[in-house]
């Protein structure tokens, strides 16, 4: 009887953990492959433990260049998308104006459009305007699909902000700029940081839109795609695992960071 009750209370937790295992299983496989020397180039069976791939991650020709390029594109796209998206989120939160509804739809549409459609239509635009494809067109495309996610994330944070805090700031001798600088911005910051992280991960991981607009430039996902046809170099798994670990580390740092008393 007690066991039955315990099961009734905890089966959801158990089911959730099973699903979580399903989510993490491929990551475990990637991590395993990153320390595995396969018996042949096209087989992925676990054969022999090695740290060679971790010691020489750039041993696969062209891969590290692609990773660096992806990081550069990610940073640039994140910067632009975060600035533009945050400005728009502020505009949409604090003010009521004609065209607000239309703007919200404009923000929503890219999130509701399949990537093939976005990528191909942008390609057609660049083709018609005779813009050479490459680094710049990739950044343009990434900013385009990241901006919406930034707006939505920052806006959600701003919506939860108590307007009376701004009145309190004004009551305590803070002019509009000071109120923004000392109250609004620090309170919105977690949302902005989350939006930037989201934008970076979307940009770094994007394949479909990038593939349409990259020309001869190769990003890391494109490198992986190309390599998949020939057999993936094991160093790819090193990068995948490293990205996962870096993400965990970043999160751990932000969670462990002592709360600062002053801004």
């Amino acid at each position, binding site marked *: 009887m007690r066991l039955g009750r315990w099961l009734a209370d905890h089966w959801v*937790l158990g089911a*959730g953990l099973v*699903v*979580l295992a*399903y*989510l*993490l299983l*491929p*990551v475990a*496989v990637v991590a395993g492959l990153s320390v595995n020397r396969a018996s042949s180039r096209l*087989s992925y*069976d676990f054969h022999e433990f090695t740290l060679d791939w971790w010691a020489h991650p750039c041993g696969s020709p062209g891969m590290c260049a692609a990773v660096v390029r992806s990081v550069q594109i990610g940073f640039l796209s994140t910067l632009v998308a975060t600035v*533009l998206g945050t*400005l*728009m989120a502020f*505009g*949409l939160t*604090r*003010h009521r104006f004609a065209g607000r509804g239309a*703007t919200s*739809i*404009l923000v*929503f549409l*890219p999130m*509701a*459009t*399949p*990537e*093939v*459609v976005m990528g*191909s*239509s*942008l390609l*057609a*635009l660049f083709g*018609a305007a005779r813009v050479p494809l490459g680094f710049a067109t990739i950044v343009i495309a990434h*900013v*385009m699909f990241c*901006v*919406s996610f930034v707006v939505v994330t920052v806006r959600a944070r701003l919506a939860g902000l108590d307007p009376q805090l701004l009145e309190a700031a004004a009551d305590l001798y803070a002019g509009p700029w000071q109120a923004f600088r000392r109250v609004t911005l620090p309170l919105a910051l977690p949302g902005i940081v989350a939006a930037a992280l989201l934008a970076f*991960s979307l940009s770094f*991981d994007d394949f*479909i839109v990038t*593939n349409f607009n990259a020309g001869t430039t190769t990003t890391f*996902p494109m490198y*992986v*795609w190309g390599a*998949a046809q020939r057999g993936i170099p094991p160093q*790819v*798994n090193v*990068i*995948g*695992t490293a*990205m*996962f670990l*870096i*993400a*965990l580390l970043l*999160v751990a740092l932000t*969670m462990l960071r002592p709360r600062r008393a002053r801004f």
Partner: protein
Amino acid sequence: MPYLLILPAGLWLIVFFVVPAVQLFATSLYDPSGSLATGYAMTGDLGNYPRALGDYWPQLLRSLGYAAVATLACLALGFPLAYAIALKAGRWRNMLLVAVIAPFFTSFLIRTLAWKTILSDTGVLVGLLRHAHLLGADGRLLATPFAVVAGLTYNFLPFMVLPLYASLERFDRRLLEAAGDLYAGPVAGFRRVTLPLAAPGIVAGTLLTFIPAAGDYVNAQLLGTPRTAMIGNVIDSAFLVRLDYPSAAALSFVLMFAILVLTVGYLRRVGAGALDAVS
């Protein structure tokens, strides 16, 4: 003042999203006998649409079907996970949330390729299933519709879990206790209290899963065969391999239109109020 704040992002979206979409629509009306080299004549011809549909309706239907099944699977898998994190995890809540998001950072191509390893004919899973006679002696998982749908499910599961979590997190568990107090058993409590309150998350999650899944071609390419090709594969190759822009543009719009009709129909059924959670 608000216009100044909105202008930069608004212009970016108009120039690089709206204008291309309009242009893509124009492209879908070009005379298909032209080519990229010789240029296309604008004929206002709607013929590209029936032509494209006639050729590729199986892929279109397959895309929508796969996406629908994957979305349902995501809901079935995502709900217990989101529920457990939001209401059962206690102080492990943040840890579990991180575990849901962290795989995002391992490139999704790499993870999909890992699925290829997991499902491969020589892999442990197929061996086990064959041994248990759940799979014939030469039965396969890879290169089947199952593999493609499983890949889609896997890739878009976080898009389901996160909005579900967001709506369940605000859920006041005392409501369930109140329901219990009012003679609702666990099933009735779930149906009458939990489910309606999670509705905004369910709506947001299904849209965020279904839409990208219907347009995806990476899973079909890596885990499937030409017989499991989706509309995304067709559009991709029409644009990048066959350079048949008018057909590709027409197919893009057919896909958009199909998604739009399904989305609007769906929102009509569940009530438009739930859309507030999305936008």
